[in-house]
């Protein structure tokens, strides 16, 4: 089992990299620049593996979705459960009245 400190380091030779290892590298590549060895390991695996390729595309899609999140928040009406309840609003108004 890998220890936390070398979790992201590829332990297998490039051609035998497991999907498990490759998926970690894909995920990490969204956080930092991969080392040359990591990058090569990942690319070689991705050339042969549709699953990990799609996983990478899904992470990319997730990121794009979250990037747009604020915009969506600004432009769509709230659903009921995302609105402050009337009693909470009144309570806040009272408190603001006391403190302003």
């Amino acid at each position, binding site marked *: *089992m*890998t220890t*936390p*400190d070398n*979790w*992201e380091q590829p332990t297998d030779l490039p051609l035998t990299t497991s*999907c*498990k290892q490759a*998926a*970690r590298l894909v*995920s*990490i590549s*969204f*956080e*930092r620049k991969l080392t040359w060895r990591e990058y090569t390991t990942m690319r070689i695996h991705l050339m042969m593996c549709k*699953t990990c390729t*799609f*996983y990478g*595309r*899904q*992470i990319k*899609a*997730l*990121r*794009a*979705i*979250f*990037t*747009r*999140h604020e915009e*969506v*928040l600004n432009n*769509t009406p*709230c*659903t009921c459960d*995302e*609105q*402050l*309840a009337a009693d*909470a*609003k009144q*309570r*806040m*108004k009272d*408190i*603001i*009245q006391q*403190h*302003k």
Partner: protein
Amino acid sequence: MKSKINHNEYPKALSPAETWVDQHGDYLFRYAMMRLRNKDMAENMVQETFLAAIKGKRSFSGRSTERTWMVGILKHKVIDHYRKDFRERPVTDLQNLQRDEEQTVDQFYDAIENPRKYPKDWMPDQRAILQSKEFWVILHGCMEKLPKTTSSAFAMRELDDMDTSQICKELGITPTNLWVMLHRARLQLRECLERNWFEKK
């Protein structure tokens, strides 16, 4: 009394505090809900944000809108809360993290053996997603299922666009801890979204 404030230098003044709840309450609440996933906690934070805004009225420079300024206050409160959560979590949490991640990853790869669960190509679907209210409800539901610390780290990364060093500094964790959490959050979210949204389309 006549104000000596030069309005060119301070283009905007704050609106009266008694109008804040109606103007910004729902927006701030939504912002907090997305990150905290707890109604009482989110209400509380919004209330505290208004109180801090009253106290800090003078620090409003008018260089941003009133709402952006308040979101900034709220954002700090949310991060404080995450930090406290991380400080108070049991020590075993990080030890378990590794094991939990292994499990999540194993589930992912077990699923691959089953062709029906093969990861799908989400890309062409994105435009439709963003316009669908239903999608966001599902996304929020999927985020609620993440373990608390994982979802905090994920929210800082993807919602607040903070980088590894900022998040690690705030939460007192190592980069590897963070990357394990993010990887796990992604695997869980993609699985949940695929099952509840993409497979039904």
